[in-house]
């Protein structure tokens, strides 16, 4: 048998089911690994104390998992990366975590993230940035940076995160792992602290496509607590497709060369050739509205966020500051001390966009763009099975490099936001390594594949075949191959 920590979650699960692996031993090995976190990736680790009683597993038979700190866990600190929820222990457990527990997956810990999932570098966490395991001077991506870093950095076999405009796919790309954003509605959002409700979706961050399929199968399903959930009909099977024959992959014609680094382009083009080698066909598709995706996204997401985050007022839970008996002053002090600058920026953007007199020009217009983008994808999928792009315009950038330039930071989502707006599933798989344009050691590059709504099975099958064809096996230094 392989070294315990080298096994994929699927291999471990199969060994446990076959009786070849003691779950307790396996979980203990991961707990020990997690305890060695030097990446600031965990905000809370499960040490089986009194506080984690409510999230204990009855039947331990699935690999232990790291959970983004945006999912509520009864009795266990849940901060969403924000100061305003410091010390908050929710009275209930999110559906996603409950499903994991019911499946027999112990919770290893809660992972660091950009505050309320707003960010692409994990530098917006109130608890300090997560470091990229490939290069500790670089960001792991965001907002699910902690979840990506623990999987890539050998601190967890797999993890769950959330993706609103790319928050699973981009950190997965930056950390050289697999990240899947399912169709909107595939997994319940109940207990997932809301950033932008019409876009937020839970998904797996894993080492392999098979692990992602196994995890998606556990998480998906219609939930009576989430009116917008629908689940995936027929569930999810483990992928076993060996080639890509008969499948057409569309490359957006609008994908200019200016938007991304040359190293990323090289890997992207290599991957297109790999698809052809595997029998797939490359075609050009047109997504003319996608270039407006970022603009529409940065109206819709902040608008919803401005409303979703209004509940943090210091009255019922979380942080409370100031007031001296004056209600409005308490609201103001609590919110100005509790929220970080990016969260405040988005609350202001969103409040403005929804204001009387501006609603149509901003929110109304953005919704129209959103509809157009969805129509563009429907049109493309009439011709091709998948749409492919690089996941992110660059490899992981340096800590502090973009913190002073919010627009440059927002452009990280350029390739991932259109799929979020269209509500369709998209996966990022590691496709190779590339040098950053400004030099330095090689870093992972992600390849994004998007499919029509509820086309997860087909997407996983194709991603699996491509993953096998690429044979990406690089690991951060010190973690072995």
């Amino acid at each position, binding site marked *: 048998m392989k070294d315990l920590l080298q096994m994929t979650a699927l291999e471990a699960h199969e060994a446990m089911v076959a009786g070849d692996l003691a779950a307790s031993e396996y979980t203990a090995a991961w707990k020990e690994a997690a305890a060695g976190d030097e990446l600031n990736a965990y905000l809370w680790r499960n040490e089986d104390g009194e506080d984690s009683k409510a999230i204990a597993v009855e039947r331990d038979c699935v690999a232990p998992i790291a959970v983004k700190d945006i999912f*509520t866990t009864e009795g266990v600190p849940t901060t*969403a990366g924000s100061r305003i929820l410091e010390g908050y222990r929710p009275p209930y457990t*999110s559906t996603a975590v409950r499903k994991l527990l019911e499946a027999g997956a112990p919770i290893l810990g809660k992972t660091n993230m950009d505050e309320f999932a707003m960010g692409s570098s994990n530098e917006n966490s109130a608890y300090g940035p997560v470091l990229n395991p490939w290069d500790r001077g670089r960001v792991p991506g965001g907002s699910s940076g902690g979840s990506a870093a623990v999987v890539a950095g050998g601190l967890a076999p797999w993890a769950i995160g959330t993706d609103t405009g790319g928050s699973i796919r981009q950190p997965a790309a930056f950390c050289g792992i697999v990240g899947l954003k399912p169709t909107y509605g595939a997994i319940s959002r109940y207990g997932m602290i809301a950033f932008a409700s019409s876009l937020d979706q839970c998904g797996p961050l894993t080492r392999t496509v098979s692990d992602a399929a196994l995890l998606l199968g556990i998480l998906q399903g219609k939930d009576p*607590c989430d009116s917008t959930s629908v689940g995936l009909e027929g569930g999810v099977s483990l992928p076993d497709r060996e080639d890509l024959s008969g499948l057409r992959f569309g490359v957006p014609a609008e994908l200019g060369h200016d938007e991304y680094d040359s190293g990323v382009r090289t890997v992207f083009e290599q991957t297109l050739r790999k698809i052809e080698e595997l029998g797939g066909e490359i075609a050009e598709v047109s997504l003319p509205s996608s270039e407006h995706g970022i603009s529409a996204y940065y109206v819709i997401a902040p608008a919803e966020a401005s409303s979703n985050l209004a*509940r943090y007022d210091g*009255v019922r839970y979380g942080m409370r500051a100031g007031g001296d008996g004056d209600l409005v002053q308490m609201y103001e002090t609590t919110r100005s001390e509790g929220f970080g600058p990016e969260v405040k920026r988005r609350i202001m953007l969103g409040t403005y966009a*929804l204001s*009387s007199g501006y609603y149509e020009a901003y929110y109304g217009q953005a919704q129209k763009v959103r509809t157009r983008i969805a129509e563009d994808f429907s049109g493309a999928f009439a011709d091709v099975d998948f749409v492919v792009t690089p996941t992110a315009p660059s490899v992981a950038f340096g800590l502090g490099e973009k913190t002073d330039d919010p627009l440059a930071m927002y452009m990280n989502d350029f390739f991932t936001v259109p799929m979020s707006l269209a509500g369709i599933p998209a996966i990022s798989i590691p496709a190779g390594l590339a040098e950053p344009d400004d030099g330095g050691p090689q870093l992972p590059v992600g390849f994004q594949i998007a499919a029509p709504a509820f086309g997860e099975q087909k997407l996983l099958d194709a991603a699996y075949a491509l993953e096998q064809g690429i044979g990406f096996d690089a690991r951060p230094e010190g973690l072995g191959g």
Partner: protein
Amino acid sequence: MAELEAVIGLEIHVQLATKTKMFCGCELSFGDEPNVHTCPVCLAHPGVLPVPNEQAIRYALQIGAALNCEIAPRSIFHRKNYFYPDSPKAYQISQYDIPICGAGRLGDVRIHRAHLEEDAAKMIHVGESGRIHGSGASLVDFNRGGTPLVEIVTEPDLRDAAEAAQWARLLRETIRQLGVSDVNMEEGSLRVDANVSVRPAGSEELGTKTELKNMNSFRFLQRGVEAELARQRQLVESGGTVEQETLHFDPASGSLTSLRSKEEAHDYRYFPEPDLVPLVPSEEQLREARESLPELPVARIARYEEMGLAYDVALTLATDPRTAGYFENVVEAGDGIEPRVLANWVTGELAAALRQAEVDGGAADSRISPPDLAKLVRLVQEKKISHGSGKKVLAAMVKGGGDPEEIVEREGLAQMSDSGELEAIVEKAMADNPDAVEKIREGNGKAIGAIVGAVMRETKGRADGGEVNRLIQQKLNS
């Protein structure tokens, strides 16, 4: 200056009597210990999501059907954003541009719309005023937070305060008979706000309106609207203009104080609630809503007026379906007696007799069967007994039930048929009351009462009042 006409529209909040809250599973309650009916959802903990209450949707559809509203094939929920401790999410889930119920009508008043929303939590302001201004502290009770509400908005079709109060009563009765709400104004399960304006009579344009809140009885509604109309009339007549504002009515002093002006009006930043899918009622739900409707007051009033009943009597019966059912049984047993006469007996004499005998419950619960009442009315109609004797028989029946004919026999109440005997009694009564006779001669018609009274005493009420009157006049003129 032309006379100023009042223009009044109402906004009515109806708390639905569902088992649980609008968007979570917490039980509804009134008067329980504070904050016992709460959960992560209605306390707006991070990550929670609303799930619509199906019973509330059914009730809203029933209200829509009762108010003849157009039902939207696809309505949506919006978020109404505002910061206040009674709203833990800092937004209320309500409906905005596409409500579940569109245009409708109840009686003479058009309905603009009716929509579903959730109630706010209850604020208790500690201190003398009982209001947030000047209170020492404010407490929040989340038991009420999230209670399903239907807000009904009328067109400005009402023209005076009394009419507004009367129509509001009709609406309450309609909703009460649907069984979808307790419609208790004091407990707040029915809350009426009024939009009030004035304009020159005959004008089509609407004047600037003010909104009146906190009128927790129909009497206060009428008084509040009257007070505001008087204020606006005086203001306009003295050359001033009405400012758009929200007013709080204080029933104790009868005064109106400004809650907020137009400038202070909130920007609620409405946007579609992304946590909920559109509300699309199925054909079956729509049919169920229509078929579940009982005969509602408006329809009953129309039917009774058709039968010849006066509006007031029809309204009295329509607001009391059990008594109305009793009345209809009496009509059936009365076979040919005018329903108008029977209705007057049911709502007049019988109700009075029950009250006098301090019997609990209405006619339907009394010991008098509908055929027996019909029989009694027939005895009076056919002048077998006098009206006064009829009331006596009724009083006996209220106590012990029984056949009216037997009671007439037993008590010797049969009308005096021998006019010779009655004539003698009348003559004696006139002779015993010379003062009264003199007064009548001098033109004081009322004085006849003394003589009639004496005859009735003598005959123990068996005489027909009309006949006695005729005899007295005859004697006087001879």
